[in-house]
């Protein structure tokens, strides 16, 4: 073919074959567009089949019910009754009463017509009377007499009319007696068969149902959701036992949050406009809102059912409370953990909290490309990154071999269980800026959460213990001030323990500690004591006490283990502006009181 001169080569075969392929490819495009890429059509067809089957079963049940011997017997009886009743209609009496009724109605009509005419004439005369009166006519009196006479005849006619009316009513009653019996029997018969008739209508409507894209448009939330294109029954009840997508929405959520007002993706996320998988569930690269996993779905509840108490904006730290609401167990667990672990010591929520690490107020707005997934084992989603980071912060953000630059995550590893990590991840996902984009009138029915009662602490030690938790000291200094949390390149390697504060303040005897705590308890300023208390080396103790107070107020920059290395990421922040002297004294009293004397004696 290639050796021949171009004029002698025939291209008809090549042309024919390539044209056929072109046509086939066009058919493929149509097939791809109409069938392959429209999965929802199949889903809907399947559902229509399912629904039809279900309705058919119900129809059959209704039919069976009609065919059951009892019902058959009773309906037979009713039919007999009906026959009997209709038989009566053929008797002479009934015919006679019909005739009576007809006659009565004719004479009634006649009388009532006469009565109407008299009335009309009376009105005419009235008009003439007034006309004559106005024109000072002579025949005023004659008209007056006429009116009087006519009124009398009207009274007579009225009496006659009432009489005839009575007669007519009686004759009608008689006929009704015959017909009412038949009506009653018919009603009873129809009661038995309506169910079947209704189902027949339903079957017809299912068959004629068009296959089309369904969508819910929620303008205030800026969401258009086509989820119900495949999840057709999500709004209907009674499909709980079926598999997805032909399952009713579980729980009571939709009763409180009507779909027309909220849509789907505002809670579940995913790609509302997409109609095929996995796109519609948002499980594709770069779709920033993949569908929430089952474990985290209640984070959406917490978006509106808030973490903070309204009206407490000024206070620090934010009061994180557990909302007493169904389905909020996971979020409440997360909130409880958030308090217990002292996260607020380093992290702020919308500006309220510690400033050692990032503000968590809108942490769920992070996008996939903002995160490093090099060391993530599971799927590459923001939720999973958070989950694995909670499990092991240092594994996810490994220390890179760059001296003096990055140390990886400085978040302590709290050895969380998987459930705890899930709960915290759910809490983090609830912290989004979307909260602010939800219009205020969506909060109309929000239950106002009363602020918790102001707690009166029995002693300063108790108050100090509460502050130690509330201000997040516990985050770094651990539960009961045990310390032991790693701080990379810190000279002491781990964050100092605080339950040995008594020792540091040179108080080695239990009695001495109690004395000092007592002073603090009474609100005595140790610095201004005139008389030296009976504590050994009190001046030195006082100096240490002042130093500790100063440290809390002004903070500490931790020393470096390797002087050329990076700054240790965790440090003691300055508390002077946030804690009053009273608070600090309370905390010191609490820390003094937890010194483990008995154990040290035993050793």
């Amino acid at each position, binding site marked *: 073919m290639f050796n021949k001169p*171009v004029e002698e080569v025939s291209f008809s075969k*090549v042309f024919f074959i390539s044209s056929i392929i072109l046509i086939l490819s066009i058919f493929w495009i149509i097939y791809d567009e109409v069938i392959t890429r429209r999965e929802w059509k199949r889903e809907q067809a399947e559902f229509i089949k399912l629904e039809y089957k279900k309705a058919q079963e119900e129809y059959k049940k209704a039919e069976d019910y009609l065919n059951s011997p009892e019902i058959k017997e009773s309906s037979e009886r009713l039919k007999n009754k009906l026959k009997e009743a209709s038989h009566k209609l053929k008797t002479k009496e009934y015919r006679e009463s019909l005739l009576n009724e007809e006659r009565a109605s004719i004479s009634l009509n006649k009388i009532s017509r006469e009565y109407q005419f008299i009335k009309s004439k009376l009105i005419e005369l009235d008009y003439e009377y007034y006309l004559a009166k106005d024109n000072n006519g002579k025949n005023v009196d004659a008209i007056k007499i006429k009116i009087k006479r006519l009124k009398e005849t009207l009274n007579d006619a009225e009496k006659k009319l009432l009489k005839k009316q009575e007669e007519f009513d009686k004759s009608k009653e008689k006929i009704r007696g015959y017909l009412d019996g038949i009506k009653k029997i018919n009603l009873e018969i129809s009661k038995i068969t309506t169910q079947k008739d209704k189902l027949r209508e339903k079957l017809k409507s299912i068959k004629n149902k068009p296959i089309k894209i369904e969508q819910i448009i929620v303008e205030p939330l800026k969401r258009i959701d086509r989820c119900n294109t495949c999840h057709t029954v999500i709004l209907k009840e009674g499909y709980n036992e079926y598999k997805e997508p032909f399952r009713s929405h579980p729980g009571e959520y939709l009763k409180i949050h009507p779909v027309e007002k909220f849509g789907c993706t505002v809670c579940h996320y995913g790609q509302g406009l997409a109609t095929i998988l996995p796109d519609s569930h948002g499980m594709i690269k770069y779709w920033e809102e993949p569908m929430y996993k089952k474990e985290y779905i209640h984070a959406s509840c917490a978006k509106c059912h808030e973490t903070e108490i309204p009206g407490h904006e000024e206070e620090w730290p934010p009061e994180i409370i557990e909302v007493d609401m169904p389905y909020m167990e996971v979020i409440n667990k997360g909130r409880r953990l958030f308090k217990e672990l002292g996260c607020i010591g380093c992290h702020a929520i919308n500006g309220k909290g510690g400033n050692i690490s990032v503000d968590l107020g809108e942490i769920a707005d992070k996008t996939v490309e903002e995160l490093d997934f090099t060391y993530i084992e599971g799927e590459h989603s923001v939720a999973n990154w958070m989950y694995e980071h909670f499990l092991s912060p240092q594994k996810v953000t490994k220390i890179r071999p760059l001296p003096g630059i990055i140390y990886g995550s400085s978040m302590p590893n709290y050895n969380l269980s998987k459930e705890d990590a899930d709960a915290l991840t759910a809490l983090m996902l609830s912290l989004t800026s979307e909260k602010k984009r939800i219009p205020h009138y969506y909060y109309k029915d929000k239950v106002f959460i009363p602020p918790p009662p102001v707690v009166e602490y029995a002693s300063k030690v108790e108050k100090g213990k509460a502050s130690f938790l509330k201000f997040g000291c516990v985050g770094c200094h651990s539960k009961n001030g045990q310390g032991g949390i790693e701080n990379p390149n810190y000279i002491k390697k781990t964050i100092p323990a605080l339950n040995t504060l008594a020792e540091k303040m040179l108080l080695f005897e239990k009695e001495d500690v109690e004395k000092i705590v007592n002073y603090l308890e009474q609100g005595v300023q140790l610095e201004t004591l005139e008389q030296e208390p009976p504590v050994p080396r009190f001046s030195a103790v006082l100096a240490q006490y002042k130093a500790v107070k100063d440290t809390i107020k002004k903070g500490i920059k931790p020393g470096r283990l390797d002087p050329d290395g990076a700054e240790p990421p965790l440090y003691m922040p300055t508390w002077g502006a946030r804690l009053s002297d009273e608070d600090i004294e309370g905390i010191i009293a609490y820390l003094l009181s937890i010194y483990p004397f008995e154990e040290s004696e035993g050793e």
Partner: protein
Amino acid sequence: MHNFIEILTKPDNIPIAGMLVLVFFFYWYGLRQAFRNDKIPEENRKEPDRVDVWPYLVRIEFVALIVVMVLLNIWSILIDAPLEEIANPNRTPNPSKAPWYFLGLQEMLVYFDPWIAGVVLPGLIIVGLMAIPYLDVSPKGNGYYTFKERKFAILTFSFGFVVLWVFMIIIGTFLRGPGWYLFWPWQEWDTHKIVAITNVNLYDLLGLTYAGSFIFGGAVIALYYSLGIFAYLYLKKRKPEIINQFGIIRFSIVAFLFLTMMALPIKIILNLLFHIKYIWSTPWFYI
């Protein structure tokens, strides 16, 4: 290497990969024909056969059209247009890559300042391409492939198009990773990569004053372009027929465009091997 394959098979890079194969195939195919023609002895050469465009060429083009349509159809069915992350003005991607056909220009920005690489050189490319029919008036090679008779034209074009343009697109697409750093195919694209930028201006290397550097740089550039004059004088003495064929105006335009083109590889070598940034600095531009 899996990293490189991943980049190569990214839906938006597939056409580039395919185009590169096609460019080199047809380049090789044309040259092969040229060399075959050159081997035919002078006396055996005949006036080549001529065929009408209609229908003999048009029907081939029509079949080609159908085949391309089929390819495009199948391609559009199998590979969807890829998504990227949502645009965020607070987090611009690094690098922001130009469309693939401009990646050669973007690559030039590494070696020249934006005024030269972004305005002057692209302008000269367009003007130079438009000028080719007026500069190259030789009737040789019309209607047949030949290399022997058009060595300068073919070599210059090959260097300018295949080496500088196409290779720079390859580099820009496949070898430039995060931060516009150079990554070899076997290297992972590490977003945290740090490369010490130790490039120095030539005049700073010599420790010149501002005025001195201005004069020195200008002199170097002037000397570079005066290579054209030397070439003219040399050719006039040795091969006067070439000069006669060109004429002085045409020759100087060709020499200017050619030297400007060659400045790019020279800058690349200076930059990559000797870490030299600029040669001449003026208040308005750097070269």
